[in-house]
């Protein structure tokens, strides 16, 4: 049996006339691993995931799920081994939480008891409530319950916590961690750095349908050659000489967006470097309207690779 739970190579998906949603994606998710797909809106995350789930046919490329290909004859058995939460599914509003989970459970030959999953997701109180009467976060949890009730080997989660409050998000994180503790494999898409950093063993950054970087969150951050970030928004007129700032000792990288007048610096030691940066700005007769420093995150990795923010679209 192959080591990889999920594997795809050279995945391409076009939407006529001119959209290339996925443009040659290679991906490998090991068994028991949690892989995060990170990217801005329209990057091709959902398309990639749905191809892996066997819901969308790729125009080119190879897909293997648990060592098996879609369409090779035993799709139903394969579907029985994966759990899916789509980015947007409106479950039947007239059914109760229990009835919904139970219905999904009936599609699988084996799995967990609906009540057990409902309890894991903290939905006991809402067990008899109609899905249509639930809040957004509760519906997300029902969707997750439907994905978990078959006790799948691989769990696909497409933005499981988008739009949830921090507490609801935490709850879902705990459920995913619990699932992983049982040895499950997860492929998860998200816009949230904290989510990827907390849950994922590795992260794939994807933009315009292409993979930009794959590695563990820590190593991706480290690869920036920086521990910390200085961000300054400059007052008008902001005629910045970027080169002289970049060459300051301790600065490992700098970028300047003249439109937003935002200067971003990656530095190793903020205590030593900050003074130099401020002095240099003063020398150039520039005024910083705001000045912020923070630990480097995946967001900065993304900005570094694409020159854009993750949520800028």
């Amino acid at each position, binding site marked *: 049996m192959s080591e990889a739970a999920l594997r795809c190579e050279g995945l391409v998906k076009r939407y006529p006339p001119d959209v290339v949603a996925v443009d040659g994606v290679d991906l490998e998710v090991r068994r028991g691993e949690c892989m995060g797909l990170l990217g801005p809106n329209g990057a091709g995350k959902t398309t990639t995931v749905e191809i892996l*789930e066997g819901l969308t046919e790729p125009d080119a490329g190879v897909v293997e799920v648990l060592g098996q290909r879609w369409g090779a004859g035993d799709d139903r058995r394969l579907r029985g081994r*994966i759990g*899916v939460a789509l980015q947007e599914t409106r479950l*039947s509003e007239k059914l109760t939480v229990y009835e919904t989970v139970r219905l999904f459970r009936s*599609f699988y*030959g084996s799995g967990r*008891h609906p009540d057990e999953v409902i309890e894991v997701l903290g939905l006991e109180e809402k067990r008899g409530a109609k899905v249509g009467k639930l809040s957004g976060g509760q519906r997300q949890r029902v969707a997750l319950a*439907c994905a978990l009730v078959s*006790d799948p080997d691989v769990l696909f989660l497409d933005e499981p916590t988008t739009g949830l409050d921090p507490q609801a998000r935490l709850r879902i994180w705990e459920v995913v961690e619990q699932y992983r*503790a049982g040895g499950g494999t997860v492929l998860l898409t998200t816009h949230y750095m904290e989510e990827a950093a907390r849950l994922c063993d590795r992260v794939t950054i994807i933009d315009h349908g292409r993979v930009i970087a794959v590695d563990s969150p820590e190593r991706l951050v480290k690869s920036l050659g920086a521990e910390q970030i200085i961000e300054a928004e400059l007052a008008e007129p902001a005629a910045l000489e970027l080169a002289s700032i970049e060459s300051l000792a301790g600065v490992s990288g700098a970028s300047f967006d003249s439109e937003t007048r935002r200067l971003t610096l990656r530095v190793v030691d903020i205590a030593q470097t900050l003074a130099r940066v401020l002095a240099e700005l003063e020398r150039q007769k520039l005024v910083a309207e705001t000045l912020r420093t923070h630990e480097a995150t995946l967001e900065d990795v993304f900005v570094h690779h694409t020159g854009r923010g993750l949520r800028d679209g």
Partner: protein
Amino acid sequence: MADRHTSDRHTGDRRRDDKVTGHPLWELTAARLREFVREPAAVFWVFGFPLVLAIGLGIAFRNKPPERVKIAVDGRLPDAAEVAKRLSKGGRIDARVLPHARAERALERGEVGLVIAPPTAAPPKASAAPQGAKRAALSLSYRFDPSAPESQRIRLAVDDALQRAYGRVDVVAVVDVPMKKPGARYIDFLIPGLLGLNLMGSSMWGLGYSIVHARSHKLLKRYAATPMNRAHYLMSYALSRLVFLTAEVTILVVFGFLVFDVTLKGSVFALAGISLVGATSFAGISLLIASRPTTIEGVSGWMNFVMMPMWLLSGSFFSYERFPDALHLPIKLLPLTALNDALRAVMNEGRPLWATWPELCVMVGWGVGSFVIALKIFRWR
């Protein structure tokens, strides 16, 4: 934990094969039934509306005793009160004395069909009267609107009653025999038509609407991601329809019997068989209509496009014999016509199931044909 990652995690005791749910087909059907009964509007349109229609049309067209003709007697007529009294005696005419102006107004508004007024010109000459008749006992005039459809009938009835009241003797003895036997009245024609219409409507909407709804909410896609047998999903609609079908047919037939004395002349078996074939046929058509649209608006348009001609042509309310002969064959090939005709053959004429085989063939043809195409082109996402 690392070693567990690589091994098949389902060798442990976490996998339990206890059956906590019923067969997926049953669970899906149960979900369908629940969704339906929890939607009060749907319940009304399927069960209540046909009854309302039956009551309304049944009352409008019921066989009532011949209606009393309303007329007015102009107060200027010297014998007005006496004329009105004698006319009303027979029970067929309701004559009231009104002052001249009121009588004219009532005529204009159609409140009365005719006004008996004083003679306008000279009384009919003696020579114009039937031979041997005595001098007219009374002379007056009838005022009415000759373009009103009923006015000629009213004039005849009033004149007949008036002449008798003043002594004319009939020379031919006649007895009226009203046709009233169950099975040949309008309501007998109507109830099977409503049944057919309802079977069509509830099959089409019940299936098409829910399927497209599920597709537009990405629920179909979610189901497609499970090992659910896709045929089970579609069959659950058929099965749930079967449950409601039984209720729909029973309610309307029992209602027709209790309220309008509409009897089922054929067997319950034949009625059930035809209803089943009809509903299944429309289920197939509906599945075809719903196989691709992604919006409710889209599927509604198609539904109406398909059903509208059958509402008009298939003889649910009025016999299609009224249409030109050349249209009869195409009309008979419509599934609703076949269903209506078969239902009437069984309910009104007491024919056995096999005798309706041409209609059954039409329905099966439509149903099977649509179903096969639908399966080919059905879109799960």
